[in-house]
């Protein structure tokens, strides 16, 4: 079985197989023997090839957090089919909320022509004001939020019409 592990925006295709002595992980072209032993209370001993380390691990759904060598890393584990489906959705034509918060002002309406980097709206989260800008030149197809509205992270706030020169 294969899963796509995403760390810092980079995808790593990983396949786990059983061997006569334990488990073997293939990450890309590279494979190595590995083991994970629980020490209780979220603590684990991790072994990858010759490297051994203690780590703290917590998980929730597809997401796993690993504290190793004094750093915490968030890794998303997805089935390859889900990754494929997600890439088809295409966010390039939309301005998404970078964080949960409240919309302060909306400076564009459907039909407006905007330039790449132009301010579309402002929002506030935890007392910080953030401006959301157009990802590319184009026409505003739809505004999906209004001042005062609370939005979750990654919500589509403004949709731009697909660029005429864009393929696919």
């Amino acid at each position, binding site marked *: 079985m294969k899963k796509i592990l995403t760390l810092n925006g980079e995808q790593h295709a990983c396949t786990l197989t059983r061997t006569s002595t334990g488990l073997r992980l293939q990450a890309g072209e590279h494979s190595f023997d590995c083991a994970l032993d629980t020490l209780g209370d979220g603590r684990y001993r991790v072994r990858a090839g010759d490297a051994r380390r203690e780590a*703290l691990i917590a998980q929730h759904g597809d997401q796993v957090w690993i504290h190793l060598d004094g750093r915490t890393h968030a890794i998303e584990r997805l089935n390859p089919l889900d990754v494929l489906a997600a890439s088809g959705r295409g966010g390039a034509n939309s301005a998404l909320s970078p964080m949960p918060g409240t919309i302060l002002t909306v400076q564009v309406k459907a039909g407006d022509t905007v330039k790449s980097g132009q301010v579309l709206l402002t929002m506030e989260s935890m007392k910080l004001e953030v401006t959301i800008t157009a990802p590319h030149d184009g026409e505003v197809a739809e505004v999906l939020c209004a001042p005062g509205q609370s939005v979750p992270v990654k919500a589509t706030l403004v949709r731009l019409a697909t660029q005429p020169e864009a393929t696919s």
Partner: protein
Amino acid sequence: MTGAPIRRLLVANRGEIAARILRTARAQGIECAIVRHPSEEGGLAPQLADAVLPIDGATPVAAYLDVAEIVRVAREWGADAVHPGYGFLSENARLARGLAEAGIRFVGPTPEVIELMGDKIRARNFVVARGFPVAPSAIEADDPDSFAQRALAVGLPILIKPAAGGGGKGMRIVRDAAVLDAELATARREGERYFGDGRLFVERYVERPRHIEVQVFGDSHGNVVHFGERECSVQRRFQKIIEETPSPALTPEKRTEICDAAAGIARAAGYIGAGTVEFIYGADGEFYFLEMNTRLQVEHPVTEMVTGFDLVAEQLRVCAGEALGYAQSAITTQGHSIELRICAEDPSQGFVPATGTIHLLREASGPGVRVDSGIHQGQRVGSDFDPLLSKLIVHGRDRREAIARARQALRDTALLGVTTNTAYLDRVLGHPQFAAGDYSTAFLDEQAEVLSGKDEVLSLDLLMTAAALSDRQLVDAAASVPAIYAAMGGWRN
């Protein structure tokens, strides 16, 4: 009203500072209550309080900012004092007055002093009139029509500030006259939004300045002392993230000069309780009064670490009418202390606030390590409040030891489920300029690339192993395939 000990204390705050205040108050046998909005869940402070009193408001923040609501709750619970913490209503004279009218003490200075120092322009004029140094400036209210012109006459670069401001909100640096009007408009909007007051003033901006503040304390018997300085120059967008004491920038002579100036300002204002006088310190050793914060500061623990005083205990004593009871000479410092603000934010995404559930929490411990925390495992971190989760405070015999302990403590801090800035803080502490004590408020911007951590080497195999082998689905699938077939490979879907 003075002279009676405090028996029932309401803490009108939340998060780490509420927990911090409750610990001291409870240790003194004071019965404690805390306020909270019904939408809030979890948190450490409610577990430490004897009572949790609901406050009403359209939003959670609005509830904490509602003077009438806090006074009502304090009166109904029978509080004889209210500690406002920092932020929210901590520098609100209307709260101090409203409580006084209800016969309840406010843990802080008099409403008159709060008003004086809360109005940045009045405060500045007060300080100038008493012979303390301030930066060249222009004030809008003096003549609004000529404001832009007078602002430029101060000499670029300038810093625009809201008259009612504080905490860096609404402040803008202007280096180019062409953008002055646009920046004034933005600052005015932010001032109106955050402080309900759009009045502005500008000050000469000192390039590569340091931000040094002095902890002062007064009692109701006319005594004023200082507890030394705190170096707060490690800032992002005017928000402090690392503070230390003593400041690596000050000579003993300069330290005496700046601390005496702070105590002098507090004395002139008839200051009662804990306060902080903030200064801009230039590379040439000149310093200017910036503002006075009439409350406990976020970074007060570093002062506690080197002086051995519990500043909250001192606040409660002074509020009960006691005299400080010690002279300036009795306040000595030992070693070095550093505070790191652990925030729910993602440094790799422009420091946007992060949310989530704390699935696993390990806080640092060890010699010279103190954690002022407001969180617990299982808690949800939302976007309703400031992103500060906890503060890591370390003490060492000298600065080098304090830095080493701070770095180890950061690496020992594990908060899984919500992205935090701990790795970023560790990189700041590891930067040679920080180690040398040679930094200004521009440090984080100037070194943004180095501090981004893009060059940090990952133990990728170990991380992939931890992620894959903790995945039940993956492990079960691998286990269900007999080893002999697995060895043959070719199992694809």
